[in-house]
Structures are given as structure tokens and as C-alpha cells.
């Protein structure tokens, strides 16, 4: 047993001496006091581990002293044993009432005293441990609160800004933090990118796992990368950063108002579909990939599904928290029913009734998993663009020329546009210039690839039935590509008033007669000539050479 500091309080010298001896014989330290007032003063100097207290004393009796000690030192429990000659039950009760813990009658029996000291010491140890644990718990609770507040702030800022995207969204976390996130941003070419991501588990750890996905999504969207490139990059990041067994199911979608297409990459999200204004599912995008962060990048399949709408509608995506939400009878939600509630013009807000339906379905039960739902209008325009922010200009060369050659391997692996995007993002263009150039490069490069190298007939692309077969033919031809090349050259020269960016794209195809497209107006051009007409409008000059195999354009950097 450890050595205790014992305070012996008695007005009788003899008693003090006898009891002190006994306690010292047991191996403990002794401090003595002659009355209650002195006992209190002793406690002020040093708190004892145990007090043996006489009841009847001058100045302040044992009962009063005990009451005061309890009041004064309420943070820590000190065992107090009354020593008294009386064994009346009334007195015993009064002592316990005043805050005493036990009784010993005088003359003190050494065996009984030893046993009682041991018991008190044991209880004191326990009490001490509990109060230390409580303090640690409180400190942990406070620091946890602070960390959660910080995390909430960071996450909110990261996912907060949905302005100018026109989407409606709803997230119902199962605990404080959602492991589901929804991100949306416009690309420089006015395509709307949306991601709904659902990471393993819920709470803060799940929310953290989504962070790399969100940052990559925003950075790459801003630079004009397509969703398959973004999905591939997120997969790589998550595979690098997350431990095995943690992953993020996600759907990435791109809504292109000019082309009237929805492009979707779905890895592990149960429901993503195009719903028309009659509230019917026109096209459902099945999950065709494992969630992000599982596969090595070399095994990763970034192929996407493309759907072209003829009449406007909405894209709806939701996580398994919603598709698996159990009602009062353990029943599931009917997704057809939810979709039928979207029978309204795409311009009208529509998410509120869906939310109410889901909450009614849960019937007061807490959702077991994070629920997230996003609705995005699919129509000819995303909505007004925000004010363009001017990029900080940096010192750069005023005259330079670059050339890139893409062979069959590069074209098969679709490295062309990705490389060009990297380029365009590094030559110091303003946001508006980047947007124009992306459009020009995308249009001309895709023309060179699809109609030059792959010799696909563009008229087929624009019938509603032909679009799917066109895409399949394209994928097939690209997969088996053995010959062919595309050369891209870009140069920056000083112009009269403004610098000029010259772009030349040359392909190995058969060429075509570009004249009709160049001279048609954008408004009355045939659907498959719109691209060239658009480029023509953005550029100072557009020239086709070598029977259409080579195109040269000049863009003024004003």
C-alpha cells in the first residue's frame, strides 16, 4: 500500500499521540490538528489523503469542520473517518450527514483502523482515476469540437459555391459530416460538370476521403479537361492517398448545351438518369466501373456514356443512401415515383417535393447512410455566365512556336486533347481567350481526328438514331487505329495592335471541301457544319489548304 498523508484532528493530546503512533506504525505520514479550525488551515496548506476527525472539539467541532472541508474542496474527494467515543446511532447519522464517510469508536482498534484505511485508500484511488478520466474526456471533447468546427469551415468553403451552375441539390448526412459530396462547375467551354461522390462510411473520415476528389474536380474543370480525364486523375489521387478498403463511388457528368449531350462516367453510383419534362426516365446511366480509388490507373477504364436529348429535361443523380432508404415497414423508395414528380418545365425548381417525399418515406427514422440528390437542368443554355475574372498576366515570350505530332498510339490513347489542354493552360491566356481557344482547338482537332484520320461521316452524327451508332463506330475505329497522324503547331507573333495566336492542324486523312462551311452563316448552317462556322466567327482568319487536310487559323489576343 502506498504511503498516505493522514490528518489526525483531536483536542486531546493523548488521543492525538496514540492515534498518530498507530498510523505511523502502519507506514503513513501524520499531520495533527487540535480543532476544526486548525484542521481547515492544514487542508489549505496541504490536502491530506485521509482525515481522522474527532467529533466534539472546542472552537469548531468535527461536524462543522467536515461540512466546511467538503464545501471548500469540492473538486476532490477526501475520505473522512470520524473518531468518537459515542456509538449512538443519532450521532453516527449526523456525522455521515455532515459529509463523513465512516466511523471508528474510541479506543481505536488497530485491526479495524488498518482495514478502514485500506478501504478508504482504495476508494480514493478510484475517485482520483475517475476525476482524471473526466478531465481528459472534457479536454478531448473540447479539442474535438474545435477540430470539427475547423473541418466544417474548410469543407463548407470547398463545396460551398454553386452559383451560376443552375443545379439543385440536397444532402442529408447520417452524422455531422457527410461522406457524400456534390460538386459543380462550368468549364471554360461552357460545359457544366457535376460530380456526386459517396465515400466509404460516413462522418469526418469519409468527408476527408472526398477532399482530393473535389480539388481535382475543380482544378481540372477550370482548365478545360473532360470528365473522363478528371475521373482518371481522381482515381490516381485516391489510389495514392487512401488506404486499401477506402474508396469513393462517384458519378461525373458533363452537360453540353451546344451539343445537347449528357456525358456520364459512373463508378458505383446506383442511380443517374436523364428525366424528361413528362417525368419519365429517358436514359439511365448504369454503373459500369468500380468506385474511384480501387483500381491501379493502368487498369482504369475511363470510357463514358453519351446521351443526346431532343427535348430539354433534367439529369438526376442520387447516392445509395437514398435508393436504400428504408421506410417504416422496411420498404424502399420507388424511384419511378420520385422521377414522375419531375414532370415540370426544366426551368422550375423541383427538388423540394422530392425532398419531402424522401423525408415522409423515412417517417421520422434517422437515415442510416448519407443521402444526396442532385438535379441539373439539361437545355440549350446553362444560364448567365459570371463576370469573367482576368488572369494575372505574367512575363512571357512574345514570339514562340511549338509543334506536336500525334501518331496512332497517342491518338488511340486519346492523349491529343489532354496534351493540348495542358498547353493552352500554360501560355498565359485570359479566361475569355482560353474559352475561345479551347473551343477552336477542340473543334478543329476533333474534326481532324474523326473526319480526317478516322474518316467518319459527320452527317450521320446528327440524326437522333445515328448518334449512338456513330459513337460506337468511332470507338471501334479508334481502338483499331494502326496508321495516321495529326500535327498541331501553334505560334505566338506580334500583330499590329494585338498579339496573334496562330494555330495549324494537319491530318493524314483524305481531306474535304471546306468552302461551303466557311461561307455559311452560323444560324443557317447544317448541323454538322456549325463547328467550322463557329471557329470562323471567333478567328480573324480561317484557311483550309491541301484539299482540307490542313487548316490554319489566326486568333487575335485582344
Amino acid at each position, binding site marked *: 500500500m502506498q504511503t498516505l498523508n493522514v490528518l489526525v484532528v483531536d483536542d486531546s493530546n493523548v488521543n492525538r499521540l496514540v492515534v498518530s503512533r498507530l498510523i505511523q506504525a502502519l507506514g503513513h505520514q501524520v499531520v495533527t490538528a487540535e480543532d476544526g479550525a486548525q484542521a481547515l488551515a492544514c487542508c489549505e496548506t496541504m490536502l491530506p489523503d485521509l482525515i481522522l476527525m474527532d467529533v466534539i472539539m472546542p472552537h469548531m467541532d468535527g461536524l462543522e469542520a467536515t461540512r466546511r472541508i467538503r464545501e471548500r474542496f469540492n473538486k476532490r474527494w477526501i475520505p473522512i473517518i470520524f473518531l468518537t467515543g459515542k456509538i449512538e446511532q443519532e450521532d453516527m447519522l449526523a456525522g455521515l450527514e455532515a459529509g463523513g464517510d465512516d466511523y471508528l469508536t474510541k479506543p481505536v482498534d488497530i485491526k479495524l483502523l488498518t482495514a478502514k484505511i485500506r478501504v478508504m485508500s482504495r476508494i480514493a484511488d478510484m475517485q482520483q482515476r475517475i476525476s482524471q478520466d473526466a478531465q481528459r474526456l472534457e479536454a478531448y471533447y473540447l479539442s474535438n469540437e474545435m477540430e470539427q468546427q475547423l473541418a466544417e469551415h474548410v469543407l463548407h468553403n470547398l463545396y460551398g459555391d454553386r452559383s451560376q451552375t443552375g443545379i439543385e441539390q440536397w444532402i442529408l448526412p447520417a452524422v455531422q459530416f457527410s461522406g457524400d459530396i456534390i460538386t459543380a462547375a462550368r468549364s471554360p467551354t461552357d460545359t457544366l460538370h457535376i460530380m456526386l461522390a*459517396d*465515400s*466509404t*462510411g460516413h462522418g469526418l473520415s469519409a468527408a476527408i476521403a472526398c477532399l482530393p476528389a473535389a480539388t481535382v474536380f475543380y482544378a481540372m474543370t477550370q482548365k478545360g479537361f473532360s470528365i473522363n480525364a478528371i475521373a482518371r486523375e481522381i482515381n490516381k489521387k485516391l489510389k495514392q492517398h487512401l488506404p*486499401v*478498403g*477506402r*474508396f469513393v*463511388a462517384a458519378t461525373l457528368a458533363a452537360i453540353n448545351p451546344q451539343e445537347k449531350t449528357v456525358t456520364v462516367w459512373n*463508378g*458505383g*453510383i*446506383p442511380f443517374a438518369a436523364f428525366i424528361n419534362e413528362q417525368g419519365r426516365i429517358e436514359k439511365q446511366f448504369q*454503373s*459500369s*466501373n*468500380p*468506385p474511384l480509388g*480501387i*483500381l491501379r490507373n493502368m487498369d482504369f477504364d475511363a470510357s463514358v456514356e453519351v446521351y443526346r436529348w431532343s427535348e430539354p429535361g433534367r439529369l438526376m443523380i442520387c447516392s*445509395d443512401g437514398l435508393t436504400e432508404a428504408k421506410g417504416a415497414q422496411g420498404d424502399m423508395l420507388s424511384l419511378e415515383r420520385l422521377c414522375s414528380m419531375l414532370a415540370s418545365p426544366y426551368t422550375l425548381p423541383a427538388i423540394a417535393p422530392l425532398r419531402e417525399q424522401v423525408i415522409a418515406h423515412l417517417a421520422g427514422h434517422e437515415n442510416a*447512410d448519407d443521402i444526396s440528390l442532385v438535379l441539373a437542368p439539361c437545355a440549350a443554355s446553362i444560364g448567365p455566365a459570371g463576370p469573367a475574372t482576368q488572369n494575372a498576366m505574367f512575363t512571357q515570350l512574345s514570339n514562340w512556336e511549338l509543334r506536336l505530332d500525334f501518331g496512332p498510339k497517342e491518338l488511340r490513347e486519346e492523349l491529343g486533347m489532354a496534351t493540348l489542354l495542358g498547353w493552352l493552360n500554360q501560355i498565359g491566356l485570359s479566361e475569355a481567350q482560353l474559352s475561345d481557344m479551347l473551343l477552336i482547338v477542340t473543334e478543329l482537332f476533333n474534326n481532324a481526328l474523326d473526319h480526317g484520320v478516322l474518316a467518319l461521316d459527320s452527317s450521320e452524327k446528327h440524326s437522333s438514331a445515328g448518334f449512338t451508332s456513330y459513337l460506337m463506330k468511332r470507338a471501334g475505329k479508334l481502338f483499331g487505329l494502326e496508321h495516321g497522324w495529326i500535327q498541331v503547331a501553334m505560334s505566338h507573333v506580334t500583330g499590329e495592335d494585338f498579339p496573334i495566336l496562330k494555330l495549324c492542324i494537319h491530318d493524314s486523312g483524305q481531306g474535304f471541301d471546306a468552302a461551303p462551311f466557311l461561307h455559311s452563316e452560323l444560324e443557317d448552317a447544317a448541323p454538322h457544319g456549325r463547328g467550322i462556322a463557329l471557329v470562323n466567327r471567333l478567328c480573324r482568319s480561317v484557311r483550309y489548304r491541301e484539299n482540307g487536310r490542313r487548316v490554319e487559323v489566326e486568333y487575335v489576343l485582344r
Partner: protein
Amino acid sequence: MSVTFHLREQEATIQIHGHFNFSQHGAFRDACKAVLAHPHIKSLEINLMEVDHLDSSALGMLLVLRDQVADHHIQRLLISNTKPVVRQIFAIAKFDKFFEID
């Protein structure tokens, strides 16, 4: 017991009961550890006959197990007796791409 296992010569079976989710994490990990401790095991079957539902943390546990199995040179990892609901979840996550699911 929510997770049980049997060993028979070179084959091992781990059986899970009820909802396969994070609450089974400890039991599942212990069962895997016990099975993997036997060096002569050549094939491991995860029997989901009694599993009504599983969530993403269960998928995560299976991914972890898949890595461990590879480290221990076990030749075959089979997920067996999946109910339609469970099979649907595997299908959405495309786990059939890298698990043998029966």
C-alpha cells in the same frame, strides 16, 4: 457469433451472418487473421448465404482481405451464395471485375 470460420485441409470458409457492415469489422478481421495464420490454406471462401445486406465498409473489408490473400499466396478467393440484394450491390460497385462471385 456473427462471423464464423471453418478449416478443412487446404480450404477455409468464412461465414458472415446478418448485416455485413462496420459493426462486423472486428469479428471479420479476427476470422481473417485466424484463417490466414494457417500456412497450408490454398483457397478461401467467403460464404454470404446468411447475409441480407452489406454496405460500402463491407466492400472495403473485402478489398483489404483481397490484398492479404495475395500476400499469403492463397490461390483462390471466392465469394459464394450471394442473395439477389447483395449481388446487386456487388454489380453496382463492379466488384465482379476483381472478385470471383458465385
